[in-house]
């Protein structure tokens, strides 16, 4: 099987997750990579690096994911992670309006500082909290987006950010937009598949076409080249030893 699909090109895509603390970035990744969920997950410290393959009809994308910590004090480290990233997941908590504000800041920063062609997806997480009664009575997954829109009208709904508001913002800025639930898996793989599809073929071919099999080491080379370059000014945080 693997031999048969060998011609199918495989390429690495660097992806970074950004967003306020406790919006569910790690949970999204955990769902995507391990199809697992943990209640009351403890906050990420620093950043975690994970990989996961995503099979598309025409090619295989290997995501190299930087799951960053959302706390304010780690913000200064973010450039290290989104530099050279071909894609970014900016996550907010759709029960918490301030997290969307923070997400907008991240989007602006990415558009300003990250590589020009970066694919950004805006993701509203914790869809499961919006209409719990509805989602438990309905089938999960297939029409949950419909549920969510209905749920907005619900009285016991924890949703504070309307789909329309976030969606219009995403369209304005040219972002992919999803509402997800890492808890019950709604829309999670869709987000990553959409990103994989949105990565322009050219950027893949151009950057990594020839060395697709050695993509990992190439990423490493790339980042190393950049390390010694312009980032030195930002290295003032490093240990004084």
């Amino acid at each position, binding site marked *: 099987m693997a031999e048969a699909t060998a011609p199918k090109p495989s390429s690495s895509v660097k992806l970074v997750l950004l967003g306020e603390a406790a919006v569910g970035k790690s949970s999204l990744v955990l769902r995507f990579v391990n199809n697992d969920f943990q209640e009351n997950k403890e*906050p990420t410290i*620093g950043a975690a690096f994970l990989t996961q393959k995503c099979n598309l009809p025409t090619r295989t994308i290997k995501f190299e994911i930087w799951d960053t910590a959302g*706390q304010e004090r780690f913000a200064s480290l973010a450039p290290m992670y989104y530099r050279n990233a071909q894609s970014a997941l900016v996550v907010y908590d759709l029960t918490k309006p301030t997290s969307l504000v923070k997400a907008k800041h991240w989007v602006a920063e990415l558009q300003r500082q990250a590589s020009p062609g970066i694919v950004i997806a805006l993701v509203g997480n914790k869809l499961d909290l919006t209409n719990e009664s509805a989602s438990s009575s309905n089938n999960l997954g297939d029409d949950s987006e419909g549920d969510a829109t209905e749920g907005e009208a619900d009285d016991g709904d924890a949703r504070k950010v309307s789909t329309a508001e976030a969606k219009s913002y995403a369209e304005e800025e040219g972002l992919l937009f999803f509402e997800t639930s890492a808890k019950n898996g709604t829309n999670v793989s869709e987000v990553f598949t959409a990103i994989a599809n949105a990565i322009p073929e050219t950027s893949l071919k151009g950057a990594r076409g020839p060395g697709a099999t050695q993509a990992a080491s190439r990423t490493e080379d790339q980042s190393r080249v950049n390390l010694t370059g312009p980032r030195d000014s930002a290295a003032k945080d490093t240990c004084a030893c």
Partner: protein
Amino acid sequence: MGRTSGQGSLSPDAHAQHNTGIQPAETANQENGASAMSLDNQKDGASNRSQDDTEDDKQDGKIQVGDGPKERDSQKDQLETGIERPQDKQEARMDEAGPETQNVDIEEGTETQDSGLEERPPLPPRPSLLQNAEQPFATHSTSKRPGLASKPTTALSSVDIQTLSFPDGSRGTFSTPAHRTVSDSLSVSGLSTGQSTPHRKVSQNGSEFDDNTSLRSYAPTLRANGDLASLLDEGLNSQSPAWKLLSTQSESVNPFESVDYENISLINFGQEFDQIEAVGAQEGNEEEVLSQWKAKLKHYLILSSAGKPIYSRHGDQNLINGYIGIIQTIISFYEEAKDPLLGFTAGGTRFVISTDGPLYFVAISRLGESDSQLRTQLEALYMQILSTLTLPTLTQLFKNRPNTDLSRPLEGTETLLSSLADTFTKGSASALLSALECLKIRKSQRHLINNTLLKTRTDKLLYGLIVAGGRLVSVVRPKRHSLHPSDLQLIFNMLFEAGSVKAGGGENWIPVCLPGFNNKGYLYMYVSFINAHDDVNTSGERPSTASRGREDEIAILLISADKESFFELKQMRDDVVEQLEQNGSMSLIKAAVRQGRPKASEIVPGTILRHFLYKSRSNVQFMMPSFSPHFETLIAKRRLMSLYHNLHASTHAKHSHVKVLHCVSRDSVSLAWTTPLFEFYCVAGPNASRAALAQGANQVIQWVKREEERVFIIGGAVF
């Protein structure tokens, strides 16, 4: 005379058992009644009832003998009357086995029987002593006193009689096996019930020991020469048959088997780590929440000098704000007086305060730790804060705005602080001893692992560590830098206790300040976990995130000063793992991890020791056996740790020169032994004899000496 028989009827069993065939003078009979009774007590574990009875007897005795010769108040008189026969006896005993204390103590059963068999003159009263001694042994003294004619008075006046000086300059504190009958009073030296500093503990003991020592006299011990170990070993061969019988029956009793007695303080320990509901989560739950909060045995509060709450282990802001205000007022009051408040006691609760720059740390404990132990814990919390923020950042924050709310910059580290706090509350040998534990593997194997790390090292590497379940396997470091145990404590806490890193899965890149190394800046730590039970999954793919025991996690930590070196270190990690797989070290490590710590009985077969701690001072490392089978539950572990904390406090108290401490309590016997080379603490069941305990200790220490290069990392690999 009528009284005597009345007294006899109070303890008919005792008479029947021990006084058969005795036709003593009336007073002698009474005496034997009491002593036989105390023997009885030793058997049934000193029930309060029989103690009371015995005390009644003494009262009776006092009154009765008081009717005798009127002018016999002075001790001199007593001694003169009683002097003849017991002196003979003393000599006889010296012929047999030498006059070590142990002999005196242990033989007392036979001794009193002997004294009953021979007719002996009525003994005069000793009112002052009898009043002092609320022990059934009071009466024994009369049989021994004469041999030590001049001692009792000195003993009475000396406060610290329990601390004995030996010719080699060392000193030791002893209690005797006979103490067991009155172990309720000994709970102070065993599992402390209250809050007290070590100094106070010792003096508390002192007063109790005074009573006994003056009566029982330790004088023979004072002339002992030879080293302490041999001193403790003596008496092995000289136990009376009766005592031996008793011991063989009861030596198998394990520590803390009778949980009901002294354990009141730990009754809610099971709920200690439960989360408290938020105030207002439901209407009118404030009282309940408050009582939950107050039921916690241990609290840690961190606040800024301006009174802003920063962290509390239990309770949310609404709940603790009031208390933060109070404690801030109290601390500030003393700060202004330039007389910083260090701690205070309220009821059974000890408050210890430590001030670090703009931060106040408060530990509130009902678990009986000493001030300095609590202070060490607070220091660790401070280190955790520094580790998050670095000292310059912290100083800067408060310099700019003294009113800074630090809980925001520290956001997300509550779990680290809490897991650290819970580690202390559960009791951690590593924290207590400020030492590290290593995975036991062969020296050559460790050498191979070290070399693998050295061989694959990249230029960016500062420290490289392999850690298995919180135990160090291997460490490589630059020649000019060593690793500080307190830094490793923070790292291990983050990786193995808090679970934030592990739960995230994958590989981690963590900025961390190691205050012991340099509190001014961050280092960057590459962390990747390998599951010891998962032999296939080592390719850097993320293992399953299902809950796994932290005991069997192997972590590879690579620390660099360069924040951009993640991929370099990742490459090194891949190389290390590959080579460890190739040369078989990885499976060795996994096997060692899976095996866990050896049980005490596996280390020294047949030992009476149930658990021990051995700290090598020069290596700043310690080793201990498995907690199973005797200390597996949370409470049993905590009691064990409390015991170790008390031993540690007593041997580390300022100005204390205690080198050997033998501690007897109702449900355990323990020993602390410190030398310049090591600190050793061990515990055995309540009926273990001191000699057997000492023998067990010696065996363990010999074992550690033999295995030193396996249980400890000596030297380590430098580059």
